[in-house]
Structures are given as C-alpha cells and as structure tokens.
C-alpha cells in the first residue's frame, strides 16, 4: 500500500484517541472533591464571591457546555490559566519544554546505545555464554527503581569522580547536555531491561527467518548477511519496541527530573499538587498524553517507511 495512504489512515486513527484523551483529562478535574473557588479565594471565601469565581471559571454552566468550551480553548492552543498566579499554562509548559526534550531525546538515544548492541550480541549466538549473560540483565534490571538508579549514578559519577553535575540544568547548551546526561542515563538504564528483552526476541526471529537462511545458503558471508539483512530489520524492531514503550519513558522523565532537581515539565505538575493548581495538572497531563500519541505516530510512520511490508 502507498505510504501516503497509510500515513493518512494512521493520522485519522489518532483523532479518536485525542478525543478520548481530552475527555479523560477534562473529567479528571471534575472528579476532584471540593470547590476550586475555595482554593482561589482561600480564607476570604464567601458564598457571593465564590459565585463570581464560578462564573469567571465558567463552572456554573452545564458539563457538556464546559467540555466544548474546554475543547474550543484547546483548539486555540490554550490549556487554561494557572489559578495561583494567573499565568498561561501553555506558556508555563513551554518554558519547561526544552529540559523535558533533553531528557526524552537523551533517554531514547542512550537506551538504544545500551540495548541494541547488547541485543545483537545476545542474538548473534543463541544460548552461548554472551547470550546467557545478556539475558540476566532484564531479570536483574527490571526491579531497579529509576530514582534509585539516579541516586547511585549521582554517587558514583557525580560525587565520587565529579564527571557530571548532580543537579540543576545549567544555562548554556553544553551545560544542558552535561546536566542531562546522568538523568538520561538513569532513564535509559531503567528502560533497557524491557528493550533488551523485546529486541533480543525480534532479532532472533529475524536471524531464523527464511530470507536470512537463504542468504546464508547462497554463501554470502556472515558479516554481509548481518549488515544487509539484520541491521535494517533491527532498526525497524528498535523503532517499534521504542514506540510501544514510549509512555513508560515519558513517565520516567517525570520521576528522574525530580532526582536531579531539573526544572522540567514533571516538576511543574508535582509542584502544582501542593497548591491545588488544577489547570496546570490538567494541562501537563494532556501535554504528556499528546506527546505519547505523537511519538507513537512517528514510530509507526518510520516503521512504515522502513518496512515495505506494512500495509495495514
């Protein structure tokens, strides 16, 4: 099937998911017990003032009307206004975006750098010592809390040998890179048990596939077979596996940025909890969900571009 046709179809599939996300996020806030007016007004709340606030926030209208008004604001790029300091939530998230991007991209790159070679190493000879060693990694690694990995990295690579800063995000691009290395590594170490396991399985499948056997039977050298057949398929497999686990990776950034005191999007949300700042929690939740859907879409499109068999 034509790639553009597939891409179009895949785009259309995203729409119901986005609607679902907007409904879920919208309802989230309506599940909260208590009155937002009390939060805004604090001690100064009176019934009359609350009523004014209700009207200002629009929560005196029917819930359906509120949802569509919320949706309308979303279409105009507005995620609402912070209750506490009246700042635009979209702008607040925008300010934290670069730190989150550093963590995510760094996490993805380091995950691949760790997982792909290990998976290829293990799959290259099933059952050999190297395979068995690599297979132990997911078993041991699955239970490593990412916050704990982060602290141990701080201890070993930050405090003992001073290679990397242990907290903050710095001001220049190079500082950003250096500051985000350890957190990205924590994310990668936390994710790689899952990646290694799935990747090893897909590599084994590829290596046992008929076309690889055919190539071998044709007398093509092993290195050549690996390069021309296996690597390309390994990339496809990696993209797929990453796409499936992207939600996990995004969630990890939220936790890990806290360990390294990096002011990224997750901290915005966690701090908002203490001040009961609904629009920020709502906005950040929506933001992350959209990031996941987008990355998933990208992964599928890359997969489709690389793999001629995709014709869903």
């Amino acid at each position, binding site marked *: 099937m034509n790639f553009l046709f597939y891409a179009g179809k895949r785009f259309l599939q995203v729409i119901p998911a986005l609607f679902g996300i907007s409904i*879920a996020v919208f309802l989230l806030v309506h599940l909260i017990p208590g009155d937002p007016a009390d939060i805004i007004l604090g001690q100064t709340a009176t019934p009359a003032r609350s009523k004014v606030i209700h009207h200002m926030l629009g929560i005196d209208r029917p819930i359906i009307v509120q949802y569509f008004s919320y949706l309308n604001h979303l279409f105009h790029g507005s995620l609402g206004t912070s209750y506490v300091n009246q700042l635009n939530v979209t702008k607040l998230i925008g300010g934290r975006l670069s730190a989150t991007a550093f963590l995510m991209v760094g996490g993805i790159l380091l995950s691949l750098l760790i997982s792909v070679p290990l998976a290829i190493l293990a799959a290259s000879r099933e059952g050999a010592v190297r395979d068995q060693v690599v297979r132990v990694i997911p*078993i041991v690694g699955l*239970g490593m809390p*990412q*916050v*704990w990995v982060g602290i141990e990295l701080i201890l070993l690579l930050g405090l003992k040998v001073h290679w990397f800063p242990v907290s903050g995000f710095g001001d220049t691009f190079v500082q950003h890179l250096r500051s985000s290395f350890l957190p990205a590594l924590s994310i990668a170490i936390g994710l790689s048990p899952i990646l290694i396991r799935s990747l090893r399985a897909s590599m084994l499948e590829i290596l046992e596939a008929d076309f690889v056997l055919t190539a071998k039977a044709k007398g093509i050298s092993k290195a050549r077979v690996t390069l021309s057949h296996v690597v390309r398929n390994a990339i496809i497999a990696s993209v797929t596996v990453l796409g499936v686990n992207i939600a996990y990776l995004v969630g990890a950034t939220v936790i890990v940025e806290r360990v390294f005191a990096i002011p990224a999007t*997750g901290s915005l*949300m966690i701090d908002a909890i203490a001040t009961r700042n609904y629009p920020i*929690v709502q906005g950040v939740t929506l933001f992350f969900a959209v990031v996941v859907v987008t990355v998933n879409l990208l992964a599928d499109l890359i997969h489709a571009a690389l793999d001629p068999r995709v014709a869903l």
Partner: protein
Amino acid sequence: MSTNIIRGKSFTKKLNFNGNGSFYFGIGLITFLIILAVAAPLISHFDPTGQDLLNTLVPPSRQHWLGTDQLGRDVFTRILYGARIDLTIGFAAVLLPFIIGTTLGLISGWFGGWFDSLLMRIVDTTIAFPFYVLAIALVFVVGPGPKAIILAITLVGWVAYCRIIRAAVLVAKELDYVHAAKLSGLPTARILRKHLLPNVISQAIIFSMSDIVLSILAIVSLGYLGLGVPIPTAEWGSMIQEGQAYILQQWWIPTIPGLMVVVTGFGLSLIGDGLVKRLNR
C-alpha cells in the same frame, strides 16, 4: 502414561515441578522476603518510626546493623517494615487490574462487536497516558496514600491484562473443544468460565509477575516524590528520598532500600520466566 491413572489438579501436573532451579530460587527468595516482612517485630525490637535524636546517622554497629537515619531511626528495622508496606501494596495493587482486565478481555474477545470496538478505543486512550503522569494526577484528585496508588495502578493496569486475554481468547475460541462446547448447547457463561478462562489465564498469570514488580516500582517512585505512603511510615521509596541527602557519607541508607526492590524484582522475574516455560507447554 496411558494406563496409570493419576488423580490430581491439572495445574500441578502442567507445572511439572522438576528441574529448573532458578524457578525455585525465585520462589524461595520471595518467600524469604515475605517471611522477613511478616516477622519484622520478631527480628528487630526497634520501633520503625521511633526517633532517637541523640543517635542520628550513626554508622552500622552491633546494635544498629545498618546504622540510623537522620532522625535516629534504625535503618535495618525500617527496611523490614518497609517490606511490609511495599510488598503488601505491590501485590494487592495488581489484584483489581487482573480481575477487571481479564473479565473485560474475555467478554471483548468472545463477543466482539460494538463492545469490543468501544473497549479498544478506551484502551487506546488509556495507554496514551504515561503511568506516572496519570498517577500524579490521581494523587492530586484522591490525595496521597495507598488508595491513590491502587486506584492509579488499577486505572492503567487493567489494559495490559485485557489485551493479553483478548488476544488469547481470539485464538482459543477457534479451538475444537470450544467449538464442541458451543455446539453442545452449553450456556455461554459456562463456556467462558470453564472452557475459555482456564486456558487463557496462564498468560495473565505470567504477566502479573512482572506487573507486581512494576507496581512495587510505582509505590517506591511515588514514595520518593512524596506522593505515596505518607511519612513517617517506613517505606522504601521515602527512605531512598530521605537518604539522598546523606549519600556521600552514609551511602547505604538510600542504597539498601533500592537493593531490596531489585532483589524483589529479581525473584519475581525468575518466577515469571519459570512460569513461561511451564505454562506454555
């Protein structure tokens, strides 16, 4: 095999408890951890939340095996009591997702139709939310504590069981014995309960092992963020968080609770791998 008649449950037969030491090692490890948690008051006579401000941050000694923390609480005791909290919530939290996901997957896979389509849209929406983001949002709604953790794990976790069971049902419903059961006019509920469920559930059981690990990780991570089990209750995540400040001098305070999680995960992974080999014939 044909003539000797063996009475017994198929599960024990299918599990075939022979060979594969790592499976037993995993079971032994988890049993050991559970015993440690249950017997905590017998192993240590310290109070896990009892402060001793004259003896803060003392190094390991015969009295305090792992020293004390910044409030003079015995670290070893807190690790034992932490096991109680983390293991209990970790195991309990997968129960609801397991039941809900399995039931919905069974119904969705068997009947298909509009229910299946709707459910799959809900699944698509749910997996778009990163777990920790949703968990934090739910803590915001419900307030910190085990309730929010279990709610968050349930809201996200059922999806995996639902997909696993649904996929297995789609395969199993074309098997001859299911056809035969259908043809013999048995009630649908009975076919689902007696013929489908027992044959697809093993996939969910296998997954639940790593799911327990993930839920313990969630409790620990939320505890670290101060959104989990409220302090001063001994809990591995908040211990890691409180110990972070003293890591250069007292590295073991945050390190040992983390290692406990790793050991738990290791044991459950071994059990999970053993189950894969045994249940998948």
